[in-house]
């Protein structure tokens, strides 16, 4: 290494100002071929939808094709893992979210590090969790809901929707912060879900199945 640097220095001295040229030229040439954005979920889901919207604009800015590659499985960790092992040249990048690049590190035994194996590029978008309940529940607002949950400890169930753990941990966090206690029931993500554990609203699941994107909610029933 030391001799390599010494040789570089020597060459730089020899060539003067032109020595940096090949390196600068290589950087300016990026991107010289198509870029692949690895989506760690199936086509048609929310992450895929965002990737495709982004790709349409980014390919114009970069003057190169942008390919979307869906590599799903294991909560997104298969696709993210592929990028962790990809050449660090900017031609393979990873779109993901708070779970794939954060929570999965605590949920899965991963063959990569969600932080140390990546260079962040940019935040893209943010969507909150909602707290909803059946209309028939006798609580008009959140304060009343908390009071009702306190009067009925352990009686309520919160359905959390999605493959993501985020609504579920939101439910746990909510109980901790409010001093309430209820059970949590994870349901599969639309559009694959045909069953839902919220009494009284199962008929409307067809609406959810047509939803354009995932619904991250914690619903009390």
């Amino acid at each position, binding site marked *: 290494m030391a001799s390599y640097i010494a040789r570089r220095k020597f060459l730089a001295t020899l060539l003067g100002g032109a020595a940096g040229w090949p390196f600068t030229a290589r950087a300016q040439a990026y991107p010289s071929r198509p870029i692949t954005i690895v989506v760690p979920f199936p086509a048609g889901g929310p992450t895929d939808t965002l990737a495709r919207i982004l790709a349409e604009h980014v390919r114009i800015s970069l003057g190169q094709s942008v390919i979307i590659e869906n590599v799903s499985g294991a909560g997104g960790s298969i696709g993210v893992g592929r990028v962790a092992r990809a050449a660090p040249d900017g031609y393979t990048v990873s779109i993901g979210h708070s779970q794939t690049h954060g929570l999965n590190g605590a949920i899965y035994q991963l063959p990569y590090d969600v932080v140390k194996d990546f260079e962040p590029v940019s935040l893209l978008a943010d969507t909150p969790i909602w707290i909803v309940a059946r209309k028939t529940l006798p609580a008009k607002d959140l304060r009343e809901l908390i009071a009702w949950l306190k009067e009925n400890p352990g009686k309520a169930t919160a359905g959390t929707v999605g493959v993501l753990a985020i609504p579920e941990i939101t439910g746990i966090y909510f109980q901790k912060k409010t001093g309430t206690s209820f059970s949590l029931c994870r349901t599969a993500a639309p559009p694959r879900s045909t069953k839902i554990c919220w009494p009284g609203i199962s008929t409307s699941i067809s609406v*959810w199945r047509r939803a354009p994107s995932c619904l991250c909610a914690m619903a009390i029933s």
Partner: protein
Amino acid sequence: MAAGSLVLVRDGYLIAYAVTAKTRWAAAPDIPTIDEAGVPGLYASVWHGLWAPKGTPREVITRLNSAVQAALADATVRQRFADQGQDIPPREQQTPQALAAQQKAEIEKWWPIIKAANIKAE
């Protein structure tokens, strides 16, 4: 997301008590924030980001970041993200540093909760 779930609220199946965010959600601005609803600070969201493999040259990251910033400033992209119920972060947060900070803060916040609740992959 907005479309499907708002239908449930409008049809009278559901009541929406709050969104777990500091600011109201553009897709459903009538739903109170968690602070307004009475549980200050109970923030939780699904936020998306873009990453490259470790060791990607700085100038390549800068080029990618500029392209992303240009996309997020584009009116069509903004509208299409909004249609998905996605809020775009302000310009100063569209940086590698802001994404790194967000990732770090979220890991520090949620990992202890996940481990305490023993949430594991199925």
